């Protein structure tokens, strides 16, 4: 049985566009974000992402788990990067220390110390803005793109019929296999299997993963026969494929694609010109007396 993503038709900005036009914009947006570490530019990307999220019509109650997971991860890594100063070393070379915080205790003679620097604060903020822009737009895809449109959207992006259909099936299978994994894990737990408490050396631990990996994989392959038969009965692959749903670009779709492409090309050009690198405002340095 196929389990579907939590898609439903909504009055939203994303669903106002053709799905393939939206995918082109999304890919351009993601690629453009990766070119920059400048907080000012990343703030613009983050703002666009917030607008997309707010207008998506996806309710907090239905996407809460995804947001909590990603939110927790973003904050956890940003805070740890800030505390340790690692992660940003490839982006900046000089640090301006605002204050050094020392713990009032020692651990085996070592006193935990945190250097609060201008660069660490800005890098943590830049990292949060960047990852939020990437993650938030990605989270919305399963909630906003109609599963019935996956195949035809990929086909319209220029992929051959078979590859487009394989991409379509891949997206449809992911929630199903996620559910199968959970069922298998629960079944194995009922038999005393504990994933969190794997014992033994590396080889033994890998071997103990087999009771999870093998049943899920074999179950998926066994179930595939029905799908293959159904496709063969409909003469899949014997000629050019037609799709039940036809999508047509409208003016707004062309505009969205143009915006995506222009943003991507501009971002790439800016990056090649050395613009958009990590930014430390001089005003901030002056405020802290540097």
């Amino acid at each position: 049985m196929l389990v579907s993503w939590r898609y439903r038709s909504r009055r939203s900005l994303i669903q106002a566009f053709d799905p393939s036009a939206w995918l082109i914009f999304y890919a351009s947006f993601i690629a453009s974000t990766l070119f920059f570490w400048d907080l000012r530019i990343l703030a613009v990307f983050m703002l666009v992402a917030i607008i997309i999220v707010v207008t998506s019509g996806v309710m907090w109650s239905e996407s809460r788990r995804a947001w909590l997971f990603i939110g927790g991860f973003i904050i956890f890594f940003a805070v740890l990067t800030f505390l340790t100063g690692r992660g940003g070393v490839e982006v900046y070379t000089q640090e301006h220390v605002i204050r050094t915080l020392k713990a009032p205790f020692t651990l085996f003679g070592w006193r935990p110390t945190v250097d609060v620097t201008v660069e660490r604060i800005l890098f943590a903020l830049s990292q949060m803005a960047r990852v939020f822009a990437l993650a938030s737009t990605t989270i919305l895809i399963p909630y906003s793109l109609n599963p019935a449109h996956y195949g035809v959207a990929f086909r319209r992006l220029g992929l051959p019929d078979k590859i487009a259909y394989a991409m379509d099936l891949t997206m449809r299978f992911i929630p199903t296999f996620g559910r199968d994994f959970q069922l298998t894990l629960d079944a194995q737990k009922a038999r005393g299997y504990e994933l969190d408490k794997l014992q033994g050396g590396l080889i033994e631990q890998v071997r103990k993963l087999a009771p999870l990996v093998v049943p899920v994989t074999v179950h998926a392959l066994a179930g595939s026969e029905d799908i293959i038969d159904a496709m063969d009965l409909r003469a899949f692959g014997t000629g050019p494929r037609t799709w039940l749903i036809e999508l047509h670009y409208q003016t707004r779709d062309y505009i969205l694609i143009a915006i995506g492409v222009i943003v991507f090309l501009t971002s790439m050009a800016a990056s090649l010109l050395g613009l958009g690198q990590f930014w430390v405002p001089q005003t901030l340095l002056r405020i802290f007396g540097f």
Partner: protein
Amino acid sequence: MSNSKLWSVVGALVGVIVFFAGIIWIGGQINPDLQLDETAALRFVFVGIGLLAVFVLYWLTKENDAWEVGTRQVVYMAIGAALYAVFSYLFNGTVFVVPSVSQVSLRPAIALPMFFGYVFGPVVGFFTGAVGNMFGDALTGFGLSPQWSIGNGLVGLISGMAALYVDKKKGLNTVLIVSAVLAAIATILWFLNPSQSNMMFFDPGAGIFGDATISAFAGLSAVVGFVLVLAVRYGFASDMDIAAAVTWAMLGNFIGIGFAAVSDIWINGFPPTVAIVGEFLPAAGPNMIFAAILVPILVRAWMSLQRQTGR
């Protein structure tokens, strides 16, 4: 594939590479201080190079049935990619936190492109690795590393090259020798640079962000993996499917992960030793352990299923 279509594909691939190479060259002229790690464009260049390599491989052996894509292959491609995405997401160290052993984290997902490649052919293997990695990254929500997706695709593709041979035993010794040479080169580089950081090991709780000195186990993991594969190869000499599956998977792993790691020499400006000792060894070595253990189990399970269903 007709000649006109063929030349269209070749032309498009070469065009992409020339376009990005031109941009980088022109970018360098405009901005002499341009650092290679400051541009994402190179990632796409390596995607082009990887796809070109795949195409050349296909072109040289295109008469072989292994490249055929029918209904069955389309469904297996989708199943493989979806499973790889789900397992990558679940075992990326955030959903299920399984303690790492000697800087080696449990990432069983890599066994999937190897298994799907060997059993269902190079096209299924490539799609499983490349698209599965892409969706796995997207599920986690942390952007995409397209050159690593291509690298994972190559793992599945090379594992599926076994299908080019009717006699599975044929070519196995050559595959073993090539893999041994690759493992030896990487391990010698580790011996010469034992203080290199393990860039694939992250333990935020302990304040480690890919900067801990590589452990002896991770440094020797390619050799350990090779020995394990060798043991499986000759331990299951009578079961040629298992012997061939792990041997081709080993070569696929070395070439695929090697491609992704070496691309970082240009993309991130890493010195070759950093890319090989810091990235390739800790990624490819442990993968061999998963290959040697999980791939044979999956192949056996698949063969049992085939016998039951009669397909």
